[in-house]
């Protein structure tokens, strides 16, 4: 019963956060310029502008527009895309699979590589291995996605010719974008795993385990990792949100047909409803994932009372 109450509370909270997110996007888009100017062709007259404003509902009071926006959002009606002449949500729906696939692949890759490396770095602390891994991590955190992606394209696509450089198709198309997208999260996960394992290894209960004569492996796997990986799980979840929205850049580099690239294309073709829909959609996805992680975190670590650490 208590758990049910918690879930209900969390869902309510999620609704409030989603409402806040949608409102924020609305305010930002309305306050930062006149969408009609963006939509209108360069040779448009004042009358044309007025007509466009009327068509977009921009001539009505702000409050009325806001209510209208929320009403439509609630039933998933995010206006018509100018370019595709179809509901924006429908266009987004076709692309969401690609974005999710890329983000999940990147996340999986980051987990599989980063956690063992972080543990290795922690138990080999202060050796050349640790120093090398730490240096590598700092480097990986400093190289921007888009450049890493382009360089990987040059090396593996153009010079070695091993992998396709753009588009979506078989598994080989996924490798370069996923590796590129995962580089930053991989680095921060490694760093966090290392410090978390180190922290746990210096805890009293590990000393006790050592004192009663347990070997290094059981201590590490049965005692230390269970606690050390809690913050890692949290970060993993939070990163998924970042990966979903950060995919904008990587999708553009690799011509990956996801939501991010669609949104950027919509900006360049002045497809304003599609831009708004794309931003709202990605932001909501991000928020929902984050809130879900928050729930899991509380379930994993019963000590937490407040949200997150």
């Amino acid at each position, binding site marked *: 019963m208590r758990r049910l109450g918690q879930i209900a509370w969390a869902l309510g909270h999620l609704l409030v956060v989603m409402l*806040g997110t949608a409102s924020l996007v609305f305010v930002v888009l309305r306050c930062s310029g006149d*969408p009609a100017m963006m939509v209108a062709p360069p040779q448009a007259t004042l009358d044309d502008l007025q007509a466009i404003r009327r068509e977009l509902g921009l001539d009505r009071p702000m409050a009325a527009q806001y209510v209208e926006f929320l009403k439509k959002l609630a039933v998933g009606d995010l206006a018509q895309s100018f370019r595709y002449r179809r509901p924006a949500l429908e266009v987004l729906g076709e692309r969401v699979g690609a974005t999710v696939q890329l983000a999940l692949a990147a996340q999986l890759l980051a987990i599989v590589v980063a956690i063992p490396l972080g543990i290795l770095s922690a138990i080999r602390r202060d050796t050349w291995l*640790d120093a090398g891994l730490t240096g590598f991590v*700092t480097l990986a955190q*400093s190289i921007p996605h888009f450049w890493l992606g*382009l360089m990987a394209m040059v090396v593996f696509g153009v010079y070695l010719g091993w992998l396709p450089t753009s588009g979506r198709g078989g598994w080989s198309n996924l490798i370069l974008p996923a590796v590129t997208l995962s580089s930053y999260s991989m680095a921060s996960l490694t760093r966090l795993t290392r410090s978390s394992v180190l922290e746990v*290894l210096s805890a009293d209960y590990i000393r006790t385990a050592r004192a009663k004569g347990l070997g*290094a492996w059981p201590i590490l796997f049965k005692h230390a990792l269970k606690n050390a990986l809690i913050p890692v799980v949290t970060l993993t979840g939070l990163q998924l949100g970042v990966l979903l*929205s950060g995919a904008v850049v990587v999708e*553009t580099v690799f011509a990956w047909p996801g939501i991010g690239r669609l949104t950027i294309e919509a900006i360049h073709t002045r497809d304003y409803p599609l831009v708004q829909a794309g931003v709202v959609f990605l932001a909501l996805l991000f928020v929902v994932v984050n809130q879900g992680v928050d729930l899991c975190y509380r379930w994993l670590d019963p000590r937490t009372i407040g949200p997150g650490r």
Partner: protein
Amino acid sequence: MSPVEVSAPARPVEMPARVLVVPRRSHAGRRGLVLKPAFGLLVGVLLSLCTLVPGEIAPTSPTDQDLAARLRPPVWMDGGSARHPLGTDSLGRDVCSRVIYGARTTFLVALVATLVGGAAGAALGLFSGYHGGLVEELVRKLVDMQLAFPYLLLAISVLAVAGRSVPVLVTVLALSSWPAFARIVRGEVLSLRERQFIEGARAIGCRDLRILLAHLLPSVSASLCVVWSFDLARVVVLESSLSFLGLGVQPPTPSWGMDLSDSRQFLQIAYWTVLFPGLAISLVVLAANLVGDWVRDVLDPIVKRSRAGV
């Protein structure tokens, strides 16, 4: 420090006993204390030179087009010439000069944005941490809200609608950087305000503003330095990402992110047009990160001691 056999996992991992002892600074750590600031200083000096006197270093003007010499390779490759040490781009512009002049754009934009955002964040953090109450609650909620939101998306939508100009770009970047400052400063002030020197200052009749500026601000300045260098790195990446997406500084102003995106289609035949601007971004970001690391390492024992109340 004996070499470790990585390829023999069957052997039980020796849990180093020193993990359980008081941590001490390793050889690598000590070397880092010299190398990190040295690298940071080197990049900093180069960056300052490129920002202040680009004309003295650059071989030619960054906007001079020479359509007869398009996509020329760097000097060490066949067909390269000393006139264009790092080659030319698709319009025959000198890559080396564009990298040098691009430094000014990226560095100035990032510097102004982090300083403005940092000052605002620090002020909010100081004030809310010291006064508490409703203001603190509000600032905390705002910070949480912004940190829980995909900022790149917000920046993209603002720049798409508000138009692409340097003031808008700086504003967007500054708005992205205040929460980190506010959060750190607020946290420190919360613990500092209970300390005796603040109590003493209050007892001898200092006004709040004086306590904030003369007592609390110097105490948090070290943390501000750390946050600032990491934030500078973050903002440089954000700026070049936005420029890469075509939403940053507009031509003809040279910008690293924009050069990357312009040269993308020639990647297969002229990798140098993409290699060098990106290398420049990575070096700057790496330097800022390393300096941040270094300042934190140096300050760490001090910070810990002061927190323990010694």
